[in-house]
């Protein structure tokens, strides 16, 4: 499977030239023109290879290399640069740069070196990428999002529905309201949306609107600042402290639209963090609002984030191999309810990976990092345990949503047994036996 390459050069033309050259040779390539953005990109996505210029403003190739090495001690790193003097060369040699090549580049030699570190896409993978693009375009027509998200994981059905909805709101208007669970991954989705709206790798600023009314002016001036800076994304995250602030936020959007010229490209993504669903949120945010489901309801996304974090943590610790999980740890990861969602996954896995040396991540280490013990279950009962818990959760949610009693719901579902209270759902056998079987 082909990996990804990150190309960094402050001269956009040169970066594009390298990107095109590599793409023509079937590599999957991302491009950045600012080292600080490239670092942000490195933090989120595992790369096979980094190709960077040396002479750049703000942070030169050596500083960038140093930062990249702090994140990933073993990441292959090629400097492609104009003339470098001896002290500069010695400096990067002592920072474990993988290769230094001079501009003008001998493309034949360059590609040979790149091939040592990253596999190009096979013809089939390439066709698939093109096809994905086409299906993506077809789906976009049907109110879906334009490409596979890069930061946000939308593997679970509910997550992809969330993203579809968020994207369709983003396409229509100037504001998007997201109700995210505590510590949720909404900012990642906003980053993808920013990218899809043509902001490239420009950073998405996050500002917050606190409860005090004086903060409206403050937020306005912060937003003006962001919008005046063309090095920043036209998509801005604004964190609200409560659903009650949505009205203020809507006013803010209006004021800003009137005030800022060329506000077409502007999108304000307001994020409200709260536990559970909120009818109040849906009522106030209306058509511009979308609810991000908690990570515990998105097992495959949870798995994607856990693997991503474990890989990043392992690489930062300088391990050449990614951290694996023992089956008991896998069970525990998918059983725990992650009340602080994405943030908690990151914290816990960083702690667990660094505590587990080079061993696969075990149940003991994980439980210690979680601060909670999780009882292991024999393999044959794993899926049944999960499905039972999910069934119970879903039934309780239905009672709340549909505003029915347990008994009414049971009737509605055509269940034989009589249910007096929510508690009875706990002992209800799975609605279909197949749910626990293979």
């Amino acid at each position: 499977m082909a990996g990804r390459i990150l190309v960094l050069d402050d001269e956009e033309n040169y970066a594009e030239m390298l990107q095109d050259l590599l793409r023509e040779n079937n590599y999957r390539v991302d491009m950045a023109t600012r080292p600080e953005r490239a670092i942000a990109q490195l933090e989120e996505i595992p790369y096979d290879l980094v190709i960077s210029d040396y002479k750049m403003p703000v942070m030169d190739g050596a500083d960038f290399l140093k930062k990249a090495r702090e994140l990933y001690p073993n990441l292959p790193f090629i400097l492609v640069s104009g003339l470098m003097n001896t002290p500069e060369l010695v400096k990067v040699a002592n920072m474990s740069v993988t290769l230094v090549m001079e501009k003008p580049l001998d493309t034949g030699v360059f590609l040979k070196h790149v091939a040592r570190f990253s596999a190009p896409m096979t013809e089939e993978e390439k066709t698939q990428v093109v096809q994905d693009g086409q299906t993506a375009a077809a789906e976009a027509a049907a109110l879906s999002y334009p490409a596979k998200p890069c930061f946000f994981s939308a593997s679970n059905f509910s997550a992809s529905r969330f993203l579809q909805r968020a994207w369709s709101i983003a396409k229509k208007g100037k504001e998007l309201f997201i109700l995210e669970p505590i510590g949720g991954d909404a900012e990642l989705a906003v980053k993808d949306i920013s990218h899809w709206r043509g902001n490239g790798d420009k950073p998405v600023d996050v500002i917050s609107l606190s409860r005090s009314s004086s903060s409206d002016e403050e937020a306005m001036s912060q937003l003006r600042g962001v919008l005046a800076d063309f090095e920043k994304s036209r998509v801005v995250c604004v964190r609200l402290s409560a659903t009650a602030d949505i009205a203020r936020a809507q006013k803010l959007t209006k004021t800003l639209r009137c005030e800022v010229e060329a506000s077409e490209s502007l999108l304000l993504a307001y994020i409200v963090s709260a536990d559970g669903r909120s009818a109040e949120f849906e009522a106030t945010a209306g058509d511009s609002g979308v609810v991000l489901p908690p990570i515990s309801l998105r097992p495959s996304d949870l798995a994607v984030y856990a693997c991503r974090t474990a890989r990043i943590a392992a690489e930062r610790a300088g391990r050449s191999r990614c951290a694996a999980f023992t089956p008991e740890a896998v069970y525990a990861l998918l059983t725990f309810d992650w009340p602080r969602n994405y943030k908690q996954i990151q914290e816990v896995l960083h702690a667990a990976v660094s505590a587990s040396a080079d061993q696969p991540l075990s149940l003991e280490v994980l439980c210690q990092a979680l601060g909670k013990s999780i009882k292991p279950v024999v393999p044959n009962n794993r899926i049944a345990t999960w499905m039972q818990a999910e069934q119970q959760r879903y039934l309780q949610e239905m009672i709340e949503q549909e505003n029915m009693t347990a008994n009414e719901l049971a009737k509605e579902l055509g269940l034989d047994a009589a249910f007096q209270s929510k508690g009875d759902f706990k002992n209800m056998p799975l609605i279909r036996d197949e749910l626990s079987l293979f």
Partner: protein
Amino acid sequence: MPYSVLILDDDADFNCLLTDIFEQAGYIVTSLTDPIEAVDAFRETDYDLVVTDHRMPNMAGAEFLKVIKKIKPEVPVIMVSGYLENDTIRELISGGVGGVFLKPLNIFSLLERTAELIDEAKKVENAPESDAGDIGDASGVDAGVQLGFVFRSFPCKSGASASFAKRLYSLRNFKSSLSLIGEPGMHYRSICEDIRGFYENEAEHFVYLSKGSFDQEQALSLIKVAKQEGAERVTCVLLELEGMDESQKKLATSLAKHQGEFEELGVALRTVFCVCGDLDALFDEGLIDENLYILMGTAEVLVPPLRDCDIDVGVMAQQLVVEVAREKSLAAVPRFERSARDLFRQHKWTRNYQELRATVRKILEDHPGDIITHAAVKSALKFNEDVSLRTRFESHLSSQKIDYLRAAAILLGGDRDQTASFFGTDVNAIENQM
């Protein structure tokens, strides 16, 4: 335990100086002045790090680096020299040098770099050699999306269809026969066209034979035509096999076994059986005889029902809309309301693709317009609210179950065997589910 360092410098004075520096810092030092000798010593002893000069008789430092990196690439090497050309430094970097120090020597930095390099090398050495490194990409994080080959009959956005496509792809070079087993209303023909698409070779031909047209004469003539067109191998796809009459089934057996006239065609033959329903059940019901049962049982692939591919269904519905729009030369392709698409995903599709296709056509007939509304879909599906709550519940649980399987597979590095043993079942069961 103190680390051991090999020092190579033909200048005796400087060699002594370096040796002193490293011994003072607590390293065990072997000091040599001849590169050839040093290569031998390096081969025989496990040093933790090598320090070398560049200008030496017999062999330059850069050359020495190349030689010893071939022997043990994991041992870090530091170059210490009076003067180095920029080209040489670049050459050293690409040769894998760990550090470069020019005279006058900064002893502090040299020792610091030495410690760093040994530290890093030990970390790598202690890392397990498992191949779990590629979790991010190879693990099936995108199990449903990145197949690495073309597949059109299912969009493969769902786990079930993606693994189905992968299994077909892995079996594409089957020798004599393959059975596609599914529920009623499957689009076997498009699936087989996908199998054909796995080959770039023009000499692979597929012919399609169904209940209405399958007899010896027609089969032979289709195969002969294919041969005339340059086919080296012909794959005969038998559609709706369970509905064929006795003589057709007999013929199917001879075709699959290359008997009678099929033997003398002078072209390689393969057979794909497409049936609806479980093989054992078909046998018990007398719909296939023992011969066919045995032939078909050798390589079975289960086609996932649409209800197990809910994400695909939305995409397929949209593809069908595009197809109809093209047929009718509509100015714009109608679009689904979001909630309307959800109805498609929640529906059970007991007659699978056939039902989906018929439903889409009916909706477009009954409700012309640019937007396909929730109400239009609902009336076409004769949606019953009472049933829907139960259906929604069941379909939610089934899709969460699949998602749990995928999650476990992702966390286990995409390894099917490990995933199967994680759930205490076998690989086939897992693959069928996903």
